[in-house]
């Protein structure tokens, strides 16, 4: 591991150790925060007991569905907008303020439209994530140097070859960025929806544990959730790095 990587690891470990010390020594009340080691034990127990396996799977399924929808629709939406500069300039200010309205206030509306099933949550996660993908797709296409297309024309590439060998690889860092944000936003949408109104799912269980002063379950679930998100993001990051290395770097 590189020196920077080692220092980074040391910083993270030191932070966790400090939390452990602060909670063990009683500087932070155990009603507020339990030691990280206990969180980890609680998380493992939750997984082993299998009691909340259904909730966890349900949430992950919903997030996955929202994520896939958002990436696909957001990407093609971005491509369409990029093709129509006039429409895009008209939509730009709306996209910029999109995230100021918490989309999950429309959750009750979604329940009326789609019924009491998984779809309202999926749609909320999708609505939350899709704008990030659109914006990043647009950014990615904007940043492709013009000369790339000239080279493509000089090489007489067909349309598909140009798309797959020039456009997409050149925009890839931004597309990956958009996908990573989609993961985060899909989680936010689904979890927030579950906090507000749901009978199952991780967000529901966290809120339930919070209301019952069950800090161990609550922090265990929160830790699990953060581990899931970080794992997904790190895998995307690793995939991106591998793609870039294969192409011989930037």
């Amino acid at each position, binding site marked *: 591991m590189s020196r*920077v990587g080692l220092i980074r690891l040391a910083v993270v470990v030191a932070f966790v150790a400090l939390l452990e010390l602060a909670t063990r020594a009683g500087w932070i009340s155990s009603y507020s925060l339990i030691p990280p080691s206990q969180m980890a034990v609680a998380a493992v127990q939750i997984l082993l007991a299998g009691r909340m396996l259904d909730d966890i799977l349900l949430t992950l399924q919903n997030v996955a569905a929202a994520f896939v929808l958002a990436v696909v629709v957001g990407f093609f939406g971005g491509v369409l907008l990029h093709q129509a500069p006039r429409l895009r300039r008209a939509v730009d*200010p709306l996209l910029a303020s999109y*995230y*100021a309205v*918490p989309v999950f206030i429309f959750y009750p509306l979604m329940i009326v439209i789609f019924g009491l099933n998984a779809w309202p949550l999926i749609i909320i996660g999708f609505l939350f994530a899709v704008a990030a993908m659109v914006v990043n797709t647009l950014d990615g296409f904007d940043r492709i140097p013009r000369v790339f297309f000239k080279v493509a024309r000089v090489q007489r590439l067909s349309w598909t070859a140009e798309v797959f060998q020039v456009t997409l690889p050149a925009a890839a860092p931004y597309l990956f960025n958009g996908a990573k944000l989609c993961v985060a936003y899909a989680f*936010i949408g689904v979890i927030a929806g579950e906090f507000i109104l749901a009978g199952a799912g991780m967000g529901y269980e966290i809120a339930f544990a919070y209301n019952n002063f069950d800090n161990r379950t609550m922090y265990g679930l929160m830790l699990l959730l953060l581990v899931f998100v970080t794992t997904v993001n790190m895998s995307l990051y690793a995939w991106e790095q591998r793609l870039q290395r294969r192409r011989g770097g930037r």
Partner: protein
Amino acid sequence: MATATTSLPAGAGRQARDTLLVLLGLIVLWQLLHWLAGSVALASPWASVVRLGELLGRASFYPNLAETALAFGQALVISLLGGLAIGVALGANRLAGAVADPILVALYSIPKVTLYPLILLFFGLGMEAKVAFGAIHGIIPVIIFTMNAVRHIRPVYLRSARVMRLGPLETARTILVPACIPEIVSGFRIGFALTILGTLIGELFASQRGLGFLLMKAMHSNDTPTILAIALLLFAFASLCSWGLLALDRRLHRRT
């Protein structure tokens, strides 16, 4: 940014007209959805505007508005100034920047709504929790944008700072921040929108006053005109601000 192509008055006028057309389209879509879903699920645009007028005419609405504005204002100050200071400090030191970058990106992408019980346990119900919630949402993008801009600053600027024997604070104030203004404003735009979102999420879950509280109350009683009226108000406010910031952003990016 590459979007800043036309700035002629005629182009700007056409663009504003196009935006209005898109808005009009959205309103038509809203009306169609209203007909489709019925007024129990989705109030019509007109009913929502009427309700917004009613809310604005009620004296009891303003303490809530003030509460949210106060929470948002404090969170915004923390996000912008704190983010700027941390971003410059991390970016100015090569090692610190390299160490912090992936950690910050990981922090940016965790769903912070999950942390709401933690914030509530630490800050209790009320103003502090909302401000903390707004600030943790807004500060990270500001740090990331500022830090990356400072890290990729032209080396000659730093060399001249050294030649003139500027101290760290003077370097930050007279060289680093001015050189990175366009990126910093881009970071502010994202930080701004996320601070509104964070403050509102905080209010939805943790307050007895404020717009978020009104929203939550309206959601529990399925009072769709009020939900949509507040959403309209928020969207109008955010759009106006982001419009201003976007214009500033474009002008700054063109200048460099």
